[in-house]
């Protein structure tokens, strides 16, 4: 129900559950602000959004109030233009500026600085403060965030985000008066996984992107396009920026259903792999161990005969390649000869997860829905390290239930600190069952540390406590029953309960248990959400393509049923143990790899082809929610780099295949894909087609003020080159084009007159913090079928029992280190852990090792010697191995293995 409020004597509709600042910005008014943040609410600190409030029509005097602290109650009457309040707003800026350095020209924030915008907006333009400015010592905060405290205007946004919103502990506010200091107790790397958001949350240049600093360009000088993060399965929306052929930075692309205003550090800083010196920049033929470069035509000519009709080439798809590239490979080699480039374990687990989501009754929630969940059970996932942005949503979800306290006191939910003061430490139910500690444990109601099988058993027990018809678990210890009972009650009482699981434990029973809990909840009442993490950016999409498991590809080579292998954007050494990959790759004469980086697989391929990264090509990815999202080419890379799907199409054309000439652009590929694979029929709705125009014009990737266009390549040729064509999309590689707001899927960057910072997002939303105009981008490909099918899973695993000398080795995930591409981003690589094997203190004692001493072990015949790490919480008999680190990537986990102190075997054999 809307209320009527009056702004400068005109009536407008407003949301009574919101404040006047929210209303003014939603209506498009230029009302400056600092401390208020659309995701974090109001605190009334900066006093910048002052308006004049009048009691009624007759009140001509009015009083100055803060718009952010004033409810949009029926009949609220305010003025933005009133001269007294306009003077006040200018005075607030003047006060902030009293200490702010005049270093805009050399400040990284310049050109996308909210403080600059607001200063201009209030009209403050003359310095009257004549005293010395206060100065601070800046801190080293790690490789991601730069600190320049002299620029601080004391709005407190950073500390509110870091501590209150993201749960960080190693950053705080110190000091008082005009010398408030935001930083750490001492120099050091910011520990929180979301610290990178400080660069956007900070309205000025205190916190800036340290990686951007290495290759700086102003926002207005960057070429940008809508993109999707490739560093986990969540599909966060991003805006990458490029200049001179180098990717410079990533900022958040708002999507109310997905990532909202925030990204995790892996998503923000992983981009540096695009600029890596290990990129494959030209086709590379290896003959007798000698690599030579091929031209584009030579590469195509070389590959075409291998995949011609009648040949026996097989293709290995990729969970980190686009739908289009996978589909092209599938078409090229034939559906029966197309294999999923994931481990067989993951293949099975992901198929099971998708089957469960298709069958219902629980649906897979968006991140926004996850944030609104009021009771959460996590089975087997370390969310912060696997799907980090989801952890940020979960941190907010634990506040849902306690919000009733604030409601009862009639505290509006936007009144952030009043709500926090009323709620104090009250937290809603969040239960985490996993083998090792997680970074959400501090907000959990209860944590349960156990082997994957026991995690599953707990889940099964909860399900049957919720719904008696679900299969029961026998021999569960009493304390576990009590825990299960408590969790079952909390979930049943919730309005929007949520179960989170996924393939991290590599244990099907864990996933099935999660499905049972969700099914049981739906059977007895509350509409439960069921969210499965996906390991990679297109794991979900690849799983919809009817690929066969990787082991069958290995078998085909062993059987002599394949004479060439085409590997799409994949390092198989991360998918299977090295000996089997070695055997596979040496089993045929021709191994072609299309990829970005010269990884282990590409390095031994006979032909390596330079495939464009997300920033250099167009494509579609399907997120763990089941949302198909388009990412757009940000820039035209140098040399022969192009999309894998373009390479494969060109190869098909060269091989005389009709599709190779028929599929001119990405729209043709998507249409063909939809026709061939019904599950992907909706993909074309994810974004407007290439022919889309706004009054005949394309959408420019470059801001209007993009500079140096005529000069930037003048050292090569004084003739200004024609901007490259883009036949695939409605975007242009130019500053010319429509000035209108494009549809949400096509927003290359957020900008609005007078709003150069990312806060311009306000003007692209239907209302502040609501959906983007015309609906948030992406189309959901999956939902519970109208006719629900499926039943409870009833294969309940046996409890884990530690056995003598053998440990169960389980994967432990690291936000920096476990994911392949971001490992090649130098700033993140710096933060990745060194390989280790973790056991609890008791087990370490049994092994007679201290932390840091070497442990020897054998997995699948391969020997490893790794330093011991003591993780107190690991259950007895469970050892943890970091997932995905170089040297450990292909190990199939969980595995049973003997651990020994190096040089001191327990039993000589």
């Amino acid at each position, binding site marked *: 129900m809307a209320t009527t409020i009056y702004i400068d004597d005109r009536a407008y509709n407003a949301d009574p559950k919101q404040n006047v600042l929210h209303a003014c910005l939603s209506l498009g008014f230029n009302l400056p602000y600092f401390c208020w943040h659309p995701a974090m609410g109001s605190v009334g600190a900066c006093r910048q959004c002052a308006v004049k409030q009048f009691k009624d029509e007759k009140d001509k005097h009015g009083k*100055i109030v803060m718009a952010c602290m004033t409810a949009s109650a029926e009949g609220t009457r305010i003025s933005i233009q009133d001269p007294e309040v306009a003077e006040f707003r200018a005075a607030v800026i003047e006060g902030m500026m009293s200490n702010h350095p005049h270093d805009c020209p050399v400040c990284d924030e310049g050109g996308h600085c909210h403080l600059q915008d607001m200063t201009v907006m209030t009209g403050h333009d003359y310095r009257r403060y004549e005293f010395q400015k206060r100065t601070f010592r800046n801190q080293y905060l790690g490789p991601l965030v730069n600190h320049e405290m002299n620029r601080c205007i004391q709005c407190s946004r950073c500390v509110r985000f870091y501590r209150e919103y993201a749960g960080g502990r190693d950053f705080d506010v110190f000091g008082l008066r*005009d010398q408030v200091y935001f930083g750490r107790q001492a120099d050091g790397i910011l520990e929180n996984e979301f610290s990178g958001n400080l660069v956007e949350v900070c309205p000025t240049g205190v916190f800036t992107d340290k990686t951007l600093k290495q290759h700086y360009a102003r926002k207005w000088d960057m070429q940008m396009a809508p993109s999707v993060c490739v560093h986990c399965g969540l599909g966060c929306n991003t805006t990458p920026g490029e200049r001179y052929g180098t990717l410079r930075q990533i900022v958040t692309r708002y999507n109310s259903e997905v990532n909202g205003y925030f990204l995790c550090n892996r998503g923000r800083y992983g981009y540096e792999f695009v600029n890596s010196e290990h990129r494959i920049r030209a086709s590379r033929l290896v003959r007798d161990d000698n690599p030579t470069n091929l031209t584009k035509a030579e590469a195509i000519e070389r590959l075409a005969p291998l995949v011609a009709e009648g040949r026996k080439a097989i293709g290995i798809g990729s969970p980190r390649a686009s739908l289009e590239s996978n589909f092209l490979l599938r078409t090229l080699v034939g559906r029966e000869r197309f294999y999923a480039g994931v481990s067989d374990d993951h293949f099975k687990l992901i198929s099971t997860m998708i089957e469960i989501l298709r069958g219902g009754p629980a649906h897979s929630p968006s991140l926004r829905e996850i944030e609104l969940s009021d009771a959460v059970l996590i089975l087997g996932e370390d969310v912060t390290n696997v799907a980090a942005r989801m952890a940020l949503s979960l941190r907010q979800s634990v506040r849902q239930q306690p919000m009733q306290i604030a409601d009862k006191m009639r505290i509006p939910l936007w009144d952030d600190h009043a709500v926090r003061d009323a709620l104090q430490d009250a937290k809603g139910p969040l239960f985490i069952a996993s083998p090792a500690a997680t970074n959400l444990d501090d907000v959990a109601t209860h944590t349960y540390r156990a082997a994957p099988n026991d995690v599953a058993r707990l889940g099964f027990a909860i399900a049957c406590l919720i719904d008696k018809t679900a299969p029961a678990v026998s021999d569960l210890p009493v304390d576990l029953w009590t825990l299960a009972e408590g969790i079952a009650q909390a979930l049943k009482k919730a309005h929007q309960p949520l179960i989170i699981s996924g393939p991290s434990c590599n244990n099907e029973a864990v996933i099935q248990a999660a499905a049972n809990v969700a099914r049981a909840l739906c059977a007895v009442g509350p509409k439960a959400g069921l969210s499965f993490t996906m390991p990679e950016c297109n794991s979900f999409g690849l799983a919809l393509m009817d690929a066969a498991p990787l082991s069958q590809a290995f078998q085909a080579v062993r059987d002599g049923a394949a004479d060439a292998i085409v590997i799409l954007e994949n390092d198989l050494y991360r998918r299977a143990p090295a000996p089997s990959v070695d055997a596979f790759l040496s089993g045929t004469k021709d191994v072609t790899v299309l990829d970005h980086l010269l990884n282990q697989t590409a390095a031994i391929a006979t032909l390596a082809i330079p495939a464009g990264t997300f920033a250099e090509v167009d494509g579609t990815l399907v997120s763990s929610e089941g949302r198909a999202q388009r990412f757009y080419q940000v820039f035209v890379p140098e040399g022969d780099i192009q999309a894998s799907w373009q390479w494969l199409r060109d190869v098909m054309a060269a091989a005389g295949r009709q599709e190779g000439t028929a599929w001119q652009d990405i729209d043709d590929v998507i249409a063909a894909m939809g026709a061939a694979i019904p599950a992907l029929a909706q993909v074309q709705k994810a974004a407007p087609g290439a022919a889309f125009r706004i009054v005949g014009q394309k959408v420019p990737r470059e801001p209007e003020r993009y500079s140096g266009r005529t000069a930037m390549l003048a050292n090569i040729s004084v003739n200004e080159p024609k901007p490259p064509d883009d036949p695939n999309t409605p975007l242009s590689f130019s500053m010319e084009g429509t000035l209108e707001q494009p549809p949400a899927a096509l927003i290359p960057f957020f900008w609005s007159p007078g709003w150069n910072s990312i806060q311009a997002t306000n003007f692209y939303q239907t209302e502040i913090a609501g959906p983007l105009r015309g609906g948030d981008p992406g189309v959901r490909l999956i939902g519970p079928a109208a006719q629900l099918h499926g039943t409870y899973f009833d294969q309940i695993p046996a409890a884990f029992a530690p056995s003598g000398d053998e440990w169960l080795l389980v994967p432990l995930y690291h936000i920096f280190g476990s994911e392949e591409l971001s490992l090649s981003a130098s700033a993140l690589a710096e933060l990745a852990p060194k390989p280790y094997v973790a056991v609890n203190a008791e087990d370490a004692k049994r092994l007679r090792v201290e932390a840091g001493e070497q442990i020897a072990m054998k997995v699948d015949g391969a020997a490893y010697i790794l330093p011991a790490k003591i993780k107190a919480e690991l259950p007895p008999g469970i050892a943890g191995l970091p997932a995905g680190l170089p040297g450990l990537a292909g190990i199939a986990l969980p595995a049973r293995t003997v651990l020994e102190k190096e040089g001191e075997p327990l039993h000589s054999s």
Partner: protein
Amino acid sequence: METPLTKNIPTNGDGPLDLKAYEKAGGYESLRKALRMPPADITELVKKSDLKGRGGAGFPTGEKWSFVPVGADAPHPKYLVANADEMEPGTFKDRLLLEGDPHQLIEGMIAAAYAVQADIGYIFLRAEYTLAAERMRKAIAEAYDDHHLGKNILGSTYSFDIHLHVSAGRYMCGEETALLNALEGKRANPRSKPPFPQVSGLWGKPTVVQNVETLCNVPHIVNHGPDWFKSLSHTADGGTKLYGVSGKVKRPGLWELPMGTTVREILEEHAGGMREGLKFRGLLPGGASTDFLTKQHLDTRMDFTEVQKAGSRMGTGTMIVLDDHTCPVGMLWNLEHFFAQESCGWCTPCWSGLNWAERILRSLEEGTGQPGDLEKLGFQTKINAPGHTFCALAPGAMEPLQSALKYFREDFEQHIREHRCPWK
């Protein structure tokens, strides 16, 4: 003239009455009476007495209590906090009560707590008041020993605990919501209001924060009734008031006098007038954060209504006197230095404006003031007006400044003209 608040305070330098002596002098009588009354009746008594908060704002005490949720579904624990963080410059009235008669405060706290059915009490004490801390601790221990505190007070069904909390020492902590944050172990920034502490206070629970002097009045109101209390006063605001005078007067000090005693009487009769050779120029009537009053206001009655009519506030009722041998600009610099230093840094007009004002005042004193400076100072008083800032600190800091600019403008201008402080 009755002096209920100070009647038990030894004037010979002895320590305060212990519990036995206090009871012998009629102490804890209100407790026995109150515990037999319905809690709401006590609130009603206090309402009828017109007792107004003595911490400076003068909010009606009974009305404040009536906002606390009561009844079976009211949230618990509820808290009563005695604000003993007396850091207002020039103010030392609560110190006398804390050091001189600690049991009176305890008795007042129990009666107030009983009225709102609070479970736990805190005394939030200024860090420098070490003697008060020692004496309060002893009195609290005595009260526990004699079942005046703790479970089932005096055999009744009512239980109440008191904890003494010694502040880490910031002016900001005297603001009731910042005080609550400090008590919770958080940074002492003020909280937004609404919600008021009576609804969402300490640890999110209903809380009444009350000045020491206010609480000390409660037992007497319970004992003698609202009509008696009102009869103590010269004016409509009930009771007596501790008035203090500091500055270059003959007898600086503190006196319990009928509410509404005139400025002149306090200054001339009780403080003995100005020291020999000095002339009165003006005074801040109720601590540093009140507007100057001058000669023309000497017959103003010191109560919440009359001082306001004269363009200032009674505040804490403890005046700081300015004489003609003291530089008003220097005095202002001193005050604004204090306020600027004590700004918590939360809201922009306060942290930036107080700093700016302080710098200008310093430059005037150092002889580097410039034409236009007074306009800048005036501008800051306008920008930091009540309601513009997050809490009352900055508007309070502007009160002496804005009135000094009005009454002593020539002194300011002289500083600029002569590029020096004429008093140096």
